[in-house]
């Protein structure tokens, strides 16, 4: 009872205006320490990869066979050199740029395609839904890594090509999620009212279905990015990545393994650790965003 009394007693007129939805979400996100750590990690890694080369300048185009396999610290190479004399730290930055750009672009592409198709399938239903979802089911029945490998073996891998390849198959997850949301949203009163006033299906999808599913979409997008970075790493590890002198962390990890027995640890651990950190970062961010969007909805 005392608890009830205290609770009732605490209800007082509130003169402060309600906080904005985005601000509420940001507050909740900031309360998630791991999400902040993830964001910090991402900013740090992206900063090192994209701004680092401005400070730590290395030649990542020309090989130097007089400086192969230098240990960390030797001749001014902070992380040593690889088997053709590339500075390993500089290469890590260059490889990170590729991994992050391809991961982000492929994740965004998959999210956009998946969201659009999922929303259309869920809202219109009928044969449109059946057709889209059967395609999704069919493609999901084949392991995506196998499909990526097949395509990467057929075409010459490049950064844009990898984005297209990964994006072309990674949209299946978002499509399913958004379709589920659309199935729920299409029967809501405001959607029905809009349709009753002559609004088109396209407008309903554009103005109501997608905006109201945006929380799910954004959360999923972070996971898509993390998955895409891992796929880039997988493909490069299997020798199907972007050919040298371009670099990415998966390819560096693969090359590093070949030198493992020779004790050149600096070729193996840094790219491996970088992959772990970037994937963890995106997953933590995604987790934080999920909390933020869920809480925001609950408080509204």
């Amino acid at each position, binding site marked *: 009872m005392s608890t009830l009394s205290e609770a009732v007693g605490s209800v007082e007129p509130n003169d402060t205006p309600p906080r904005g939805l985005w601000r509420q979400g940001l507050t909740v996100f900031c309360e998630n320490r791991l999400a902040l750590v993830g964001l910090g990690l991402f900013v740090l890694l992206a900063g090192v990869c994209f701004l680092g080369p401005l400070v730590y300048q290395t030649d990542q185009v020309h090989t130097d066979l007089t400086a*192969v396999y230098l240990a960390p610290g030797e001749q001014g190479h902070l992380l040593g050199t690889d088997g*053709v004399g590339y500075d390993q730290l500089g290469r890590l930055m260059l490889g990170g740029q590729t991994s992050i750009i391809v991961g982000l672009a492929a994740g965004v592409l998959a999210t956009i395609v998946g969201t659009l198709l999922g929303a259309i399938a869920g809202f219109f239903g009928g044969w449109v839904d059946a057709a889209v979802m059967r395609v999704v089911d069919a493609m999901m029945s084949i392991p995506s890594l196998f499909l990526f490998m097949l395509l990467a073996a057929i075409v010459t891998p490049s950064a844009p090509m990898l984005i297209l390849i990964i994006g072309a198959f990674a949209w299946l997850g978002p499509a399913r999620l958004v379709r589920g949301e659309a199935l729920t949203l299409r029967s809501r009163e405001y959607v029905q009212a809009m349709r009753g006033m002559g609004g088109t299906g396209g407008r309903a999808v554009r103005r109501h279905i997608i905006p109201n599913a945006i929380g799910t979409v954004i959360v999923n997008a972070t*996971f898509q990015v993390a998955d895409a970075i891992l796929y880039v790493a997988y493909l490069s590890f299997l020798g199907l990545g972007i050919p040298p002198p371009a670099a990415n962390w998966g390819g560096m*990890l693969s090359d590093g*393994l070949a030198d493992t*027995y*020779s004790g050149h640890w600096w070729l193996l651990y840094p790219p*491996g650790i970088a992959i772990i950190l970037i994937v963890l970062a995106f997953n933590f961010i995604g987790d934080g965003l999920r909390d933020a969007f869920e809480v925001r909805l609950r408080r509204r």
Partner: protein
Amino acid sequence: MTSRIPGRALRGAVAAAATIALGAGLVGCGDNSGSSEDGGSQGKDTVTVAFRTPNWILPISAPGFTQGENAIFGQALYRSLYQYRLDGTAQYNIDPQRSMAEPPQVSNGGRTLTITLKDNSWSDGTPITTRDIQFWYDLVTANKDKWASYRAGGFPDNVEKWSIEDEKTFSITTTEVYNTAWFVDNQLNRITPLPQHVWDKDSATAEVSDLASSPEGAKKVFDFLTAAAKDPKTYDSNELWQVNSGAWKLEEYVPNGEVTLAAQPNYSGTDKPKLSKVVLRPFTSDDAEFNVLRAGDIDYGYVPAANMSQTSYLESKGYTVSPWYGWSITYLQLNYNNPKSGVLFKQPYLRQSLQMLIDQPTISKVIWSDTAAPTCGPVPAKPGTNTDAAGCAYSFDPAKSKELLESHGWKVTPDGQTTCQSPGTGPNQCGEGIAAGTPLEFTVTSQTGFAATTKMFAEIKSQMAKLGIQLTIKEVPDSVAVTPTCKPTEASCSWDMSFFGSQGSWYYPAFASGERLFATDAPVNLGSYSNPEADKLIEATQFAGDESALTAYNDFLARDLPVLWMPNPVYQVSAYRSGLQGVEPQDPMNLMYFQDWSWK
């Protein structure tokens, strides 16, 4: 609200961490990972060998099936008439012990070679006679267009008369007086007695007859045998392949997997097998092979170039590490028939410029860990020698390369794109068919699975980029298959450069002439190089009575650059258990004689 590590994050992190952990584990193994000296040996009468799965059993080579492993596999089951060795001790390089015939007797002013067979028999006890040689001759003569060793004008076109004297003797009269050493080493090396009494039929159920005696019949028999050879899953069950002349018989064959050879109890040669079984085990990559070798699970394997620093470790674990030098050359094939890049490759100055950007000595030393040596011309250096490029016509010289381009009308843009500035055919212009603005950009089709090859092309690409020559490296599992000989109008002619020399591009027979490689329309002239002067010199090597023609041919092609000469790696750096005897000397012509092997 609670902080937690999401499941997805964990999965992703675990996947990556597992990879790291694996690597860490491997690194952590350092020099004290457990493996016993005897571990992996399947008993003292068996040996396990790292070996690609052969995919051709018929001892008549077919286009696309000429890989080294097929030759070794074929020789184990079906001996060639002559075996060769390059130690300089025998007449015509013929190995008198292993060969199935005495060295040929030359008569008729050098045009007739009379050959007498030694006493040998098939594994079913039937004697090997000239009937089996005639059967082989009938098949290749009627089906020479399907025989990988055929070249127009070569064997059997250069045979005027083929006659069987008796069961043990036959003679060959040639159309011209050839250099006997060349004819014995490079033409007679193809003769392989075939079991006529088992194979002379056109279906599995047909009775053996003299069907191949007629050209039509020979075509039918050849088609039947070829169809059986293209069905690897039946290799160990098809009765055709059960009668052998070699020291081994096929006990088990798994397509793309392990192959087991068992000692042939009825082998009639003098070099009887000392082991009872040889297990040939394939691996998907150098790394996979080396992991197993290091764990001591195979008796004979190889050390990839990237792992040469592990030599002492392997030796401490009871392996002998020994480079296998080949009678070989290595090169980067240029496609003269490519509609775009062909006109560029036809310019000698451009080939010279490109050659001067390949630092063969340094690549051999640093990237191949001293297991490669520069190639300077078409005739190989004596195996194990010539570790510098002193004898090369065009040594590494980027400044001279640049000068050469600029003096021929190219605007060299370091780290940019070099283009033709002065089109035309004058001495200071780019050359015939090269338009203004033509860029110097090429794609190299290389091999996957060889770390040293990848690094080598990274280095070459880097050197070329310094002169604005853009090289794109495309790695494929089988670079020969996707860079065929072609006509400019064919879609398959879009390749620029092809590399298939991670274990040496070409292994010569005993006489290193170039009629199969660099003569116009030669069967392995993938890039369609053609130079009348080269043809003349190549032909001369077939007729000259001494080495001078070979020297002249080598000197001309070393300068003319039909291909770009590349560091020639050893076939492999073999690692075998120290208790395994008879492995040495490793045959420079890339054959393996398992019958010599035994355990101490």
